[in-house]
């Protein structure tokens, strides 16, 4: 036991992983009794703790969906706030089982970091937030501006690309943590704050006087914000991926948290398969037959999660846009559960 502790301590300190060698995350989780979920330090709408340290948000609800699928209990999950700089190490070192942390899916990350992107829970793009009294109406007028950025993000690279592509100079001020970045922007160190447009909308509401700030219309990048797991554990990858698809599938078949018990009586074969009444899709993944029923029962479907946290039911009020289901003209699409 002591030896195991020592091993854990040393590997954690080095940011290496001892768990990857064993690579059975699902069994580890079942034994432990809860899911370890890496989230952001506090992004309105995606992951924010309240006064009682109860987390909520779109990213948070995904982890609760995982916990529901495994333990039939959306509360069987512990959240670890990670910074944009330390998130990959936290995942590699096995401190978290899954990273649901507004992380952009890029090729370099996918192929070099020893991680796997599970699916895009939110299609985003990078935008700019400025003070209204600056009198700027387009990002193309930002030549010579000072820009506050969180370091270690795709945001940093996109900004460099955008200003270079438009032959504009700028001066980046990069902070390690989001809090300091926002504070420096609010204190006037920078003219512009840039990050994913969804986060900008939420961050704006946190300022003392939100109406003094305006989000510029330009979206300068593709930011598919995806869930991430460690490479080399396909079983766990499947669980993470199909949990996400189950949320979409539930929305598509009109199964909601409120009507899921009613739906158990449905004659629709698709719904019967989803809820585990026909066939067994859970056991091959190492879950129970009613895994998807538990997910919807625990957190609702994708639409409910979206509206509750970032959509019409939240102060942020973002429209579904490209995050609508494919049949509504959006990009969210689940392969069939059959």
């Amino acid at each position, binding site marked *: 036991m002591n030896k195991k502790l020592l091993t854990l301590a*040393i*590997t954690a300190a*080095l*940011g*290496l*992983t*001892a768990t*990857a*060698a064993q*690579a059975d995350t699902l069994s580890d989780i079942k034994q432990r009794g809860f899911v370890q979920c890496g989230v952001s330090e506090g992004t309105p709408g995606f992951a924010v703790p309240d006064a009682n340290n109860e987390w909520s948000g779109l990213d948070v609800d995904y982890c609760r969906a995982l916990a529901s699928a495994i333990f039939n209990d959306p509360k069987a999950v512990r959240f670890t706030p990670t910074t*944009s*700089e330390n998130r*990959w*190490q936290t995942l*590699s070192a096995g401190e978290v089982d899954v990273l649901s942390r507004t992380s952009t899916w890029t090729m*370099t*990350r996918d192929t*070099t*970091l*020893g991680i796997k992107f599970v699916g895009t829970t939110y299609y985003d793009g990078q935008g700019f937030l400025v003070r209204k009294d*600056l009198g700027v109406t387009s990002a193309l007028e*930002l*030549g*010579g*501006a*000072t820009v506050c950025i969180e*370091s*270690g*993000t795709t945001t*940093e*690279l996109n*900004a*460099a*690309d955008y*200003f*270079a592509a438009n032959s504009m100079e*700028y*001066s*980046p*001020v*990069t*902070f*390690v*943590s989001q809090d*300091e970045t926002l*504070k*420096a922007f609010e*204190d*006037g*160190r920078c*003219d512009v704050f840039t990050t994913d447009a969804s986060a900008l909308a939420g961050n704006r509401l946190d300022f003392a006087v939100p109406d003094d700030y305006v989000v510029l219309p330009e979206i300068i990048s593709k930011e598919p914000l995806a869930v991430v797991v*460690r*490479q*080399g554990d396909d079983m766990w990858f499947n669980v993470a991926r199909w949990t996400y698809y189950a949320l979409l599938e539930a929305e598509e078949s009109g199964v909601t948290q409120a009507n899921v018990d009613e739906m158990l009586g449905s004659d629709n074969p698709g719904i019967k398969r989803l809820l585990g009444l026909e066939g067994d899709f859970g056991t091959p993944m190492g879950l129970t037959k009613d895994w998807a029923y538990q997910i919807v029962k625990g957190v609702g479907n994708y639409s409910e999660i979206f509206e509750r946290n970032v959509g019409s039911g939240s102060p942020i009020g973002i429209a579904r846009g490209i995050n609508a289901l494919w049949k509504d003209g959006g990009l969210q699409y689940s392969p069939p559960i059959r």
Partner: protein
Amino acid sequence: MAVDTAGRLAPPPRTAFFNDPVIRGYFYQALLVLIVGGLVYWLGANAIANLTAQGKSLGFDFLRNTAGFDIAYTLIPYSRTSTYLDVFFVGLLNTLLVSLISIVLATLLGFFLGIARLSPNWLVAKVAAIYVEFTRNIPLLLQLFIWYFAVLKVMPAVKQSYSLGDMVFINQRGVFIPSPVPDDKFVWVVVALVIAVLASIAVRIWAKTRLEATGQRFPVFLTVLAIVIALPALTWLVTGANLALDVPKLTGFNFRGGIDLPPELLALIFGLTIYTATFIGEIVRSGIEAVSRGQSEAAQSLGLREGDRLRLVVIPQAMRVIIPPLTSEYLSLTKNSSLGAAIAFPELVSIFSGTALNQAGRAIEIVGMTMAVYLTFSLIVSLIMNIYNARVALVER
């Protein structure tokens, strides 16, 4: 050990070889080497096994790849198309810049503080004592946040900048000062300054020799001051050299031209200096107090003046006590400069071990290089200070 009634030590009893302290000593040392070696091997093997399992490799080829991000404050040319190796050097130079400036300032302030705490003036001594106790008991990171965010908050926006004679501008983007633009003839003024400095050294040596030979004093300080000011000034006038000033101007969002001192740089230098100076002050105070009163009384009885007493008798002896701990203060200052990452100053840890690591995903290589840099810094500073220490150390005759 057995002691007989007469209080003498009994002869050591004959022991088996495994109780022999010498053999035991060797045994434990060998055991320690084995454990440490085994641990290192196990960690290395584990790291490589896990990297392979995750499909990662080790290597420094990534240093030639394009970094793709921008850095606000660089001493060498840098753009988003530069490589990770350039990022490394940018970070290295920024760390060196901050460390060197802070070491010089902290030493000056520290010596001043140390002497002030020993001042016979009650007010001066107490003010210095309060400053030292207050500052060194607050964590440096917190102080940096205070200097950065508290000061930033009360600064005016760019368009309402404080202006000093329309030359220097202070606002939320930092301090903007004019930069000198010397013309071709200005090189002569620099030459004159070098000559003046050399001449001053010559005057000092001559004055010392004369003092030792004849006992006559010469007003060295005033003479040197006159030479250093007069000679370059005269050259400037005669050659008609021109030193233009590039004054910062408000264009668009910000001031352009001149020298830009960003708030991150100033806050970091300020924080490091103020914090480290308190420790240096205490080291200086203890060093001076370590010189026994008899020494300065003896110097007094020889008829040495107050200044000479300090310069020739007290300080040289105090330096022996001051140098070794001063070295470790310099080392910790250099390492503390990495806290600049928290307030967005692009030093080594912030941009290389932070941003570059994140973008390139080469944790082991980048962290290793960063550690090697700090280790090298520390060894170099130690080396320099040890050479100096050897010079001031007590020479046994």
